[in-house]
C-alpha cells in the first residue's frame, strides 16, 4: 500500500499559512535536502485553497508529479495540467493508495488533511517547523479535527532554526 504523507511547513504555533494565505515567513535551510522526499513520491494531492495559492504564484501543477486537485468550484476543463475532482478526496485517495507506485504527497491544505485523516487515509505527518509564532492563520488541522495519536519517527534540527519532525499516524 502506498503511503499518504502530509508534508507541510508550519509555524511553531501550528499554522501552515497566515490569514492572507501567505507563507513568506517560512524558513528553509541549505542543509535540508529535499531530493530524497521528491524521489520517494510520484503523486500529489492539493486542496482547492492551496491550489489557488499555487496559481497566484504562477504554478499550475507540480512538474513530474501526478497532481490531483479537490474542488467543487473550479472547472476541470480550465485546468488540463491537473486532475480536477469534485469530491472530498476520500474515494479517490482510497483508490490511489491501492495502486502500485511511489508514495503520495498531501501538500495541503488543512481541510483536505482533516477529511482524509477522518477516513484513516493519512499515514505520516511531516512538518518543517519555522521558528515563529503567528498567533493566527490557517491551521495544520482545522477545527473540529479528531484527536489523533502520532509516533515520532525522526527529527532534524538545522542551524537556521528549521526543525523537521516526522511522525507516523498511529492506528
Amino acid at each position, binding site marked *: 500500500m502506498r503511503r499518504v504523507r502530509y508534508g507541510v511547513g508550519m509555524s*511553531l*504555533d*501550528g*499554522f501552515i499559512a497566515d490569514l492572507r494565505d501567505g507563507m513568506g*515567513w517560512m524558513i528553509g535551510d541549505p542543509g535540508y535536502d529535499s531530493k530524497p522526499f521528491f524521489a520517494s513520491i510520484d503523486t500529489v494531492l492539493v486542496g482547492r485553497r492551496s491550489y489557488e495559492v499555487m496559481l497566484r504564484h504562477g504554478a499550475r501543477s507540480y512538474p513530474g508529479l501526478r497532481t490531483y486537485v479537490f474542488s467543487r468550484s473550479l472547472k476541470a476543463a480550465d485546468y488540463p495540467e491537473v486532475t480536477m475532482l469534485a469530491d472530498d478526496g476520500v474515494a479517490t485517495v482510497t483508490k490511489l493508495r491501492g495502486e502500485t507506485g511511489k508514495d503520495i504527497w498531501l501538500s495541503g491544505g488543512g481541510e483536505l488533511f*482533516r477529511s482524509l*485523516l477522518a477516513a484513516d487515509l493519512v499515514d505520516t*505527518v511531516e*512538518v518543517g517547523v519555522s*521558528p*515563529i*509564532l*503567528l*498567533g*493566527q492563520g490557517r*491551521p*495544520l*488541522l482545522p*477545527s*473540529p*479535527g*479528531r*484527536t*489523533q*495519536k*502520532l*509516533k*515520532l*519517527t*525522526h*527529527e532534524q*534540527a538545522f542551524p537556521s*532554526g528549521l*526543525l523537521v*519532525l516526522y*511522525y507516523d499516524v*498511529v492506528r
Partner: protein
Amino acid sequence: MTRTDSRVTIHMAASLDGFIARKDGRVDWLETSDEFAGGDTMDPESVAAFLKTIDCYVMGSRTYETALSFEAKGFGWAYGGTPTFVLTRRELPRTRETVEFYSGDLTQFVNDRLRTKFRTIWFVGGGVVSGECLRLGLADEVRYSILPILIGDGIPFFEKLDRDVALHVAEVKAYKSGTVELRYQVRKVGVPNG
C-alpha cells in the same frame, strides 16, 4: 532595581497542532505512550535537580485550578515549595503559604516585583497569561514541548498574540516519549527596552 541576570521563561506543552488544552480545559491527551528509540530519557533525579533551579512560578487562574484538581486526585502539587504567583481577579482558595495572588499590571509585576527578587522566573501557562507575557515583551525564552498528538481543537498555545514573534532556536531535544522539547530565545527586535 531589576536584577540584570533575571530570566523570564515561558514553558508550555502543546499538541503538534498547537493546543495546550481541550476547549473545556481538559489535558487528558498529555499522557502519550509513544516510544521514540532515538530519544533521551528523563530520569527523576535530573528532573528534580533541574526544577531546583527555578526560583518562582507564574500562572493563570485556570492553570492553578488544574494544578489543584491534580492534587485532589492524588498526583501531588507540581510546584513543590517554590513561590507560585497566580494572576487572577477571582477569589480562589489559597492552599499553601507559597501561593500568592496578583491582579494588576503585568509589566510592573514582572519588572518591579519578580525580577528584583528572583533570578529564574517561569511562566507555566495558560495561553492568555503566556501570550500576554510575550506580547508585552517580558519573556527572555520560550520552552515549548511538542507532544506527539493532534487534538483538532482546543485552547491555543498563545492567545491574543497581535503580532508575529520571531524566535531564535537555542536547543532541540527529542525524548523517548516522542516529545520534542525546544528552547528558543525571544528576539527582542523592535521591543522597547529590549
